[in-house]
């Protein structure tokens, strides 16, 4: 499926009679002449059902619909459309009857993506090991077991410059190397599949779509660092991913790719699944290891790092699902290949779960260095319902927001932290003009407060204090001093918290205080919520000039707060109003004002 363009030539009877064959031949000849025959596939298809304008040529992915095409037009079609990417306007049919919903925006969805981690997702049957094998599956393991030294593997990862995809971006080769060098009889390999950011589902999809890539990578790590046992720590809320992992592990054992004497090499390695009970903090590596050991999931200070002293005190390599899924490709294609993708600071690709007020929500994988604008507007198709873009939140509860002034920033580990946000595991939530920044921040902060393990006081007490201050502001009781207080507490949490959860929990507040100070001021000074989200700060009223007295709002109001006779102007009783917004939604005349 490596073709850049598909040219569909109508092969229906009607078009056949008007020289479709000659057009097909001419297009073929032009592709050869202009040197693009490798990039284009020309196919004869069935009738497009538009015979009066035939012969018809359709070019994908742009979905350009050319009508009344003659063999002489082939040269121009290939030279302009395929080579230069410009549509040949004179042949285009504007009211394309076939096009309808296949909008150009939709078609762009995959074009800017580059899929390394998701190479098999949505392509192979994840429950059939043979399909994975057919797609170079276990070829990397083969290479590692029989033709590479352990040092070569580390060196390859170093050349590749792969950095951990769980959020922190620590160089993977260093982790592996620490564990490799640590002297111990027993070592462990752990896969962190405890994905918990609200709105993030990259790891779940990878495990559901391509479980063997993770198993293969873990086995490679086992061989490289000298471990014989791997554990996958996965949330119990991911039943399908667990099910598919279990099938994959069973098949790998049957085929001799897991277990004793793998492929006759004498190397033994096996993997077990451990279920997490859904505590967000267990995504932090030391808490995760504690949880596997059967203890309460609480982080411990590092160093010592798990690479040296991890599970049951033994050296442990712990990587995130997405990091693992990159490994087999790096081994097969080489570190040099990988290092050419992305930016100076961050190599390879990143998977994002694109959600929120976006037209095409989805799972996207792009080379590092792609701009936010390309992700949101080209891949995501822009903001839903043609609303105005407000901000994009990356890094989940640990990240910050990025405003429209920074949409052209190429995304990598460094650029996002410079903007006060972070890469995180890859959640990307788009907000529009209807979202209240203070309200959104309150949501994230409450999430972090709920998920704090409570061990260290900066996180436990600081988080709660910040949440209280935000609550106060959204209730309309905020004071100017609260802004400084929030910043002070936030900075203290960043410095003094024990693990990343507490250190990053204030990020949403700190970054929005910077970029959306106006909105905080509107809440504190004007006692208004510009987006109309914070219930205590808005009032519903009826505009007497627009109300025609249809009674629609009064009939729908759940608390009977609206009074008024038929064909007379209605009135909302502010004391009874619960600000549910039903009247606003049902009014067909735009007579309900929200202020």
């Amino acid at each position, binding site marked *: *499926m490596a073709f850049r363009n598909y040219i569909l030539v109508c092969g229906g009877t009607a078009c056949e009679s008007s020289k479709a064959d000659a057009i097909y031949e001419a297009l073929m000849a032009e592709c050869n002449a202009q040197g693009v025959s490798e990039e284009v596939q020309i196919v004869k298809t069935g009738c497009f059902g538009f015979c009066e304008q035939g012969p018809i040529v359709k070019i994908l992915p742009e979905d350009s619909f050319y009508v009344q095409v003659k063999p002489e037009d082939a040269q121009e079609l290939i030279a302009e459309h395929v080579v230069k990417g410009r549509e040949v306007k004179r042949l285009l049919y504007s009211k394309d009857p076939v096009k309808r919903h296949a909008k150009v925006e939709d078609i762009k969805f995959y074009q800017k993506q580059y899929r390394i981690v998701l190479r098999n997702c949505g392509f192979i049957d994840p429950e059939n090991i043979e399909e994975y094998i057919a797609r170079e599956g276990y070829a990397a393991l083969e290479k590692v077991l029989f033709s590479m030294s352990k040092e070569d593997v580390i060196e390859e990862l170093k050349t590749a410059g792969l950095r951990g995809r769980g959020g922190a971006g620590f160089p993977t080769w260093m982790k592996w190397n620490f564990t490799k060098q640590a002297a111990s009889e027993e070592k462990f390999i752990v896969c962190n599949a405890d994905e918990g950011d609200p709105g993030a589902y990259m790891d779940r999809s990878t495990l559901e779509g391509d479980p063997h890539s993770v198993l293969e990578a873990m086995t490679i790590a086992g061989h490289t660092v000298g471990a014989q046992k791997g554990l996958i720590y996965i949330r119990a809320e991911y039943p399908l991913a667990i099910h598919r992992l279990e099938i994959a592990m069973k098949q790998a054992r049957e085929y001799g790719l897991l277990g004793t004497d793998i492929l006759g090499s004498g190397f033994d390695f096996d993997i077990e699944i451990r279920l997490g009970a859904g505590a967000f903090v267990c995504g932090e590596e030391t808490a995760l290891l504690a949880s596997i050991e059967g203890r309460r999931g609480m982080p411990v200070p590092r160093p010592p790092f798990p690479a040296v002293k991890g599970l049951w005190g033994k050296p442990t390599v712990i990587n995130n699902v997405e990091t693992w899924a990159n490994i087999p490709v790096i081994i097969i294609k080489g570190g040099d290949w990988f290092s050419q993708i992305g930016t100076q600071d961050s190599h390879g690709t990143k998977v994002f779960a694109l959600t929120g007020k976006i037209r095409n929500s989805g799972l996207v994988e792009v080379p590092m260095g792609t701009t936010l604008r390309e992700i949101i507007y080209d891949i995501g198709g822009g903001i839903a319902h043609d609303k105005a873009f407000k901000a994009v939140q990356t890094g989940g509860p640990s990240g910050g927001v990025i405003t429209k002034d920074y949409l052209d920033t190429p995304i990598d580990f460094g650029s996002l932290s410079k903007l006060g946000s972070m890469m995180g595991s890859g959640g990307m939530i788009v907000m529009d003009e209807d979202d209240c920044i203070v309200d959104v921040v309150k949501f994230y902060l409450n999430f972090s407060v709920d998920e704090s393990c409570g061990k260290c006081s900066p996180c436990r007490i600081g988080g709660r204090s910040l949440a209280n201050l935000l609550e106060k502001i959204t209730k309309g009781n905020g004071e100017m001093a609260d802004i400084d207080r929030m910043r002070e507490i936030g900075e203290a949490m960043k410095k003094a918290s024990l693990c990343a959860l507490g250190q990053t929990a204030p990020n949403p507040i700190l970054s929005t205080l910077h970029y959306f100070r106006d909105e905080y001021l509107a809440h504190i000074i004007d006692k208004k919520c510009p987006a109309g989200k914070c219930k205590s700060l808005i009032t519903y009223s009826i505009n007497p000039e627009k109300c025609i007295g249809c009674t629609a709002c009064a009939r729908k109001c759940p608390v009977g707060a609206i009074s008024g006779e038929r064909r007379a102007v209605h009135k909302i009783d502010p004391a009874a109003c619960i600000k549910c917004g039903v009247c606003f939604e049902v009014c067909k005349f735009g007579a309900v004002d929200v202020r």
Partner: protein
Amino acid sequence: MAKMTLEELRKLRDTKKVEIQKRDISGKDSQIIIGMGTCGIAAGAKVVLDAFLKELDTHHIENVSVTQTGCMGLCYVEPTVEVLSPGMPPVIYGKVDANVARLIIEEHIMHSRMVSEHVFDRPSTDIIKDGGK
């Protein structure tokens, strides 16, 4: 399957590679691949799978395989289905329900006409086949 040796793995890979590549080139058989991650299933992919099997049965079509795969990433138009059939470009259909499944069989598979209202994208660049950029 008993445990494999290195040679057996290589042999298996070569055989399977040919089979899986049939999807890309004009082989004889068509394939219908349904995205069945949690997302797809939640949006109704199981119903769609059943509908495809039923329609193939109704029309006595035997050279079409129906398989499942993971998430294709097009969350906004789940359930998604990829259809590969000879003489047609690979197509991803979105917002597929039992009725659209019937249309895909009757139009795309039986008459080589795309169900244009539901065409969303073609698969992305494949790094395994490409050997990189």
